[in-house]
């Protein structure tokens, strides 16, 4: 097994290849990435020292703040695929959280309640003619995480109503919240000073050093913030959490069927994205020492969106580069370009050239960028997924080898000998409007059996699978799995219990690699959460490495069909290989019961035979299988028992040979005259 699990390019040939490469390429990709990141960080740290211009450092600090916002929006839009058009609202919430907690804006009358807070140095008692008042002076450093938490809370609050909505409607609801927040800020002057803007927001102190209005200290805080957020983004992306987000982005139903809880991970994305904006808002308002509602309106949300579209949605480096480029364009390039045009105008005595102010056209440029990127380069400047080169001709035309199925790696659960009925369905009825898709169906799947469900199109076969896997909550009857009623469970809970499935119309995650697709199948069997993913404790590293290893082993079950293509995006695979990948993904969840919906559809006879054999070997290893199949020879060859559905009713059940001769079955399949003949 271990040999198959290794990456293909190894041994002498691989070594020779590495020797010929230029020196940098001899480093491992990881080391190279770290080296590059360290260089960029060093350049960022050296910038204010080498370039003393305070205005430029200030502009750079602002640009970095927007890079931080872009990173946050990238989690929501790029990773989880939830288009948020009101993202500036969370920026506002973070800004006003600090703005109120460290300014002269709110000054309640002093009383005993505030004393403990005074000891903690969060508030001060100020002597006033009309009686003492409270002055809030919460530390900037304390407010950074608090603002992030407050914004995250609102992220969940605003995200929750959108959970059921389709993408563009979700965008509209977030736009609505994005409009409401600045209006509420404007209309509650007692707290925010309304349209006049907060005044006297305290500058941060660092061990007695007052940041004041110098640009450099804010610049360094912004560099640190962006560096931390990039690290967090990168680590989340390459973890169980990030894979869950991307699975939801690619296909929410398939993600749920593979064990990802969509509600939980969507809310997590909203919270995480909002938290980034909350912390950034605090930095921004501390730097400006004021805030007005106009700073957080729709154009700001769009600007951040333009940044991530430009840089590359889902790409951590991409969105940072996108944000920095656009900010620099705004504050430097356009100004320079305008003054060059003015100079040219003076030179050639053309008046209108001297009047051009390109800086005012920045929003026009944003619009053009959005349209041009969508039309010609949707993946952005630095795409999130690097295109894997196609297989070499030799690899493409390699003789297919069939994998060994003598053992199933990492799948211990199904080899336990369970006896009796694994799945028991009683009186299952599903109605679509007036149409009964399933009518009082009883069905039992014995442990370690292979059951085939057959029937004409529209007879309710896929409906049966959907009901079992929790995709059709509106049904009556009972569905028991290993003794437990599962009829009311959500899809991801059904998978956790040990039922995995494939779909009739193949629902892979098309923009993720084959390996990632399979690893997502393990979601329910892995435990790394957000904190673990960010900290990368030894336990989490080990789990991740084992998961990848196991995913490769599962791919190896299909011989050299999938393994050489492990890093290819699933959408680029051939039809048969997509079917195989979907089965591999289902197997990765360590199921006890595997539901296959027309697994051989669209395969040629040789491929069908190969897959049928593989299904049989899976069963020999102890896996219970229920499959929907139209090819009767496959059914006869594989199944212990055949269940026939017609118009939502079970019309026959028994061993394949008996069912094949059943008159009612023949009538359902071939028509009345055939039955009489």
């Amino acid at each position, binding site marked *: 097994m271990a040999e198959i699990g290794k990456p293909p390019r190894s041994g002498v040939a691989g070594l020779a290849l590495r020797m010929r490469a230029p020196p940098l390429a001899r480093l491992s990709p990881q080391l190279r990435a770290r080296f590059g990141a360290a260089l960029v960080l060093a350049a960022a740290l050296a910038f204010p020292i080498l370039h003393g211009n305070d205005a430029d450092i200030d502009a750079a600090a602002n640009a970095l703040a927007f890079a931080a916002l872009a990173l946050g929006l990238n989690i929501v839009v790029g990773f989880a695929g939830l288009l948020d058009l009101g993202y500036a609202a969370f920026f506002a919430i973070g800004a006003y959280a600090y703005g109120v907690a460290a300014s002269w804006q709110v000054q309640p009358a002093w009383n005993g309640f505030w004393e403990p807070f005074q000891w903690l140095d969060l508030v001060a008692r100020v002597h006033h003619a009309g009686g003492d008042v409270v002055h809030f002076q919460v530390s900037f450093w304390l407010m950074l995480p608090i603002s992030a938490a407050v914004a995250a809370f609102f992220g969940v609050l605003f995200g929750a109503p959108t959970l*059921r909505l389709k993408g563009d409607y979700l965008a509209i609801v977030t736009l609505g919240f994005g409009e409401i927040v600045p209006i509420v800020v404007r209309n509650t002057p007692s707290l925010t000073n309304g349209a006049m803007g907060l005044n006297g927001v305290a500058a941060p102190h660092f061990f007695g050093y007052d940041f004041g209005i110098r640009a450099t200290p804010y610049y360094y805080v912004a560099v640190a913030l962006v560096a931390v957020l990039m690290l967090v983004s990168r680590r989340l992306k390459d973890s169980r959490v990030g894979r869950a987000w991307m699975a939801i982005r690619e296909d929410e139903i398939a993600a749920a069927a593979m064990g990802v809880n969509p509600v939980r991970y969507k809310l997590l994305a909203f919270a995480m994205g909002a938290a980034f904006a909350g912390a950034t808002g605090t930095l921004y308002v501390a730097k400006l020492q004021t805030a007005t509602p106009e700073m957080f309106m729709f154009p700001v949300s769009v600007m951040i969106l333009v940044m991530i579209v430009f840089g590359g949605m889902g790409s951590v480096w991409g969105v940072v580069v996108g944000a920095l480029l656009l900010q620099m364009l705004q504050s430097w390039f356009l100004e320079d370009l305008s003054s060059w045009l003015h100079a040219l105008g003076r030179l050639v005595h053309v008046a209108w050239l001297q009047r051009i102010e390109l800086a005012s056209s920045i929003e026009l440029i944003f619009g053009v960028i959005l349209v041009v990127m969508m*039309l010609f380069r949707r993946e952005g400047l630095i795409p999130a997924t690097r295109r894997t080169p196609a297989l070499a001709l030799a690899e493409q035309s390699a003789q297919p080898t069939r994998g060994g199925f003598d053992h199933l790696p990492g799948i211990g659960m199904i080899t336990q000998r369970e006896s009796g009925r694994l799945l028991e369905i009683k009186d299952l009825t599903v109605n679509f409007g007036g149409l009964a898709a399933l009518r009082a169906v009883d069905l039992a799947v014995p442990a370690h059996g292979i059951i085939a469900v057959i029937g004409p199109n529209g007879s309710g076969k896929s409906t049966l699978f959907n009901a079992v896997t929790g995709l059709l909550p509106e049904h009556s009857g009972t569905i028991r799995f290993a003794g437990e009623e599962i009829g009311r469970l959500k899809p991801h809970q059904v998978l956790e219990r040990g039922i995995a499935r494939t779909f009739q119309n193949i629902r892979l995650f098309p923009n993720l690699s084959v390996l990632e697709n399979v690893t997502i199948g393990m979601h329910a069997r892995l435990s790394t959460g957000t904190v673990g993913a960010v900290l990368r404790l030894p336990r989490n590293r080990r789990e991740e490495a084992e998961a990848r290893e196991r995913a490769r082993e599962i791919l190896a079950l299909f011989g050299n069909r999938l393994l050489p293509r492990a890093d290819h995006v699933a959408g680029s695979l051939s039809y048969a290989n997509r079917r195989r990948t979907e089965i591999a993904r289902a197997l990765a969840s360590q199921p006890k019961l595997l539901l296959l919906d027309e697994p051989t559809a669209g395969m040629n006879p040789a491929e069908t035979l190969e897959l049928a054999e593989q299904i049989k070997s899976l069963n020999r290893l102890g896996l219970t299988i229920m499959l929907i199949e139209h090819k009767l020879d496959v059914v006869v060859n594989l199944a212990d028992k055949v269940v026939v559905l017609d118009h939502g009713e079970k019309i026959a059940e028994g061993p394949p040979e008996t069912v094949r001769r059943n008159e009612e079955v023949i009538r359902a399949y071939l028509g009345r005259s055939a039955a009489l003949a």
Partner: protein
Amino acid sequence: MSETSVLLQQVVNGLSLGAMYALLALGFTLVYGIIELINFAHFNVFMVSSFVGMWALQFLGIYGQSQALTGFALAGVLLFAFFATMLAAGVLGVAIERFSLRPLRGASGTTGMITTIGVSYILFNVILLTVGAGSQNFPDPLPVARWHFGGVTVQLKEVLIWGVALLLMLGLQLFVDRTRLGKAMRATAQDAEAARMMGVNVDRVVVTAFFLGSALAGAAALIFGLYYDYTSFIVGYTAGLRAFTAAVLGGIGSVTGAMVGGLLIGLIETLGGQLIAVRWTDVIIFSILVLVLVFAPAGLLGRASPTKS
């Protein structure tokens, strides 16, 4: 004025606003019904059209509010202005579809919507950079005529607005119900793929939806200018979002829904402003938008649901 007559006056105002929102909402609903796209460009097609309307009237030599016309002269001027504005708006809508959206047909998810945000930004800034940020005095050839019913005043321009809106909506309804292209539109809205296989030229249907929707936005824009006597580069955003809310409230994809929703939003805006406070109007309208989408996504009359299938 008594309390009741103030409210009744606000109802009259609300109906005028509502008629305008309804015309604008129809553009959202027609396009959404056919290609399931929320068209942000529509906001600023409206705004650009209001400038076209202004230029059309100025082309006829009408500036400001002092040159009131009557009789055939007035009818001719209005006919020309509506025709020119609606035609220009329709052509703009078709151009947007042809050059920025058709290449993206079939692209997944929110790609189309993001593109329309970009187009909207381009239109917005082209007007801002060429015409400028100041608001423009909109020519108004209508004579000042008022009728008083109890404490309520109805102006001639309001009667005109209602009449034009009613005519256009009836025309649209007839077009969708009675013509061959209208039938093709309804078929495409139900199932574009099936319609294509039955020989419907889907591209033509989409172009028609954009043309009609944008032309109606053009009419709404002219009405806006005549009603408020000004226009500016910013008028698209607020009016557009309110009209979009109207389309959602009525049930996106439903032509009748857009009309009902438009009138309701108009009334909510004026009565809400009167009874609560104008500064909270936007919050009220956005709350309606959010609440309808979350709790009754099909709206009042919609069939298509914006939740996941």
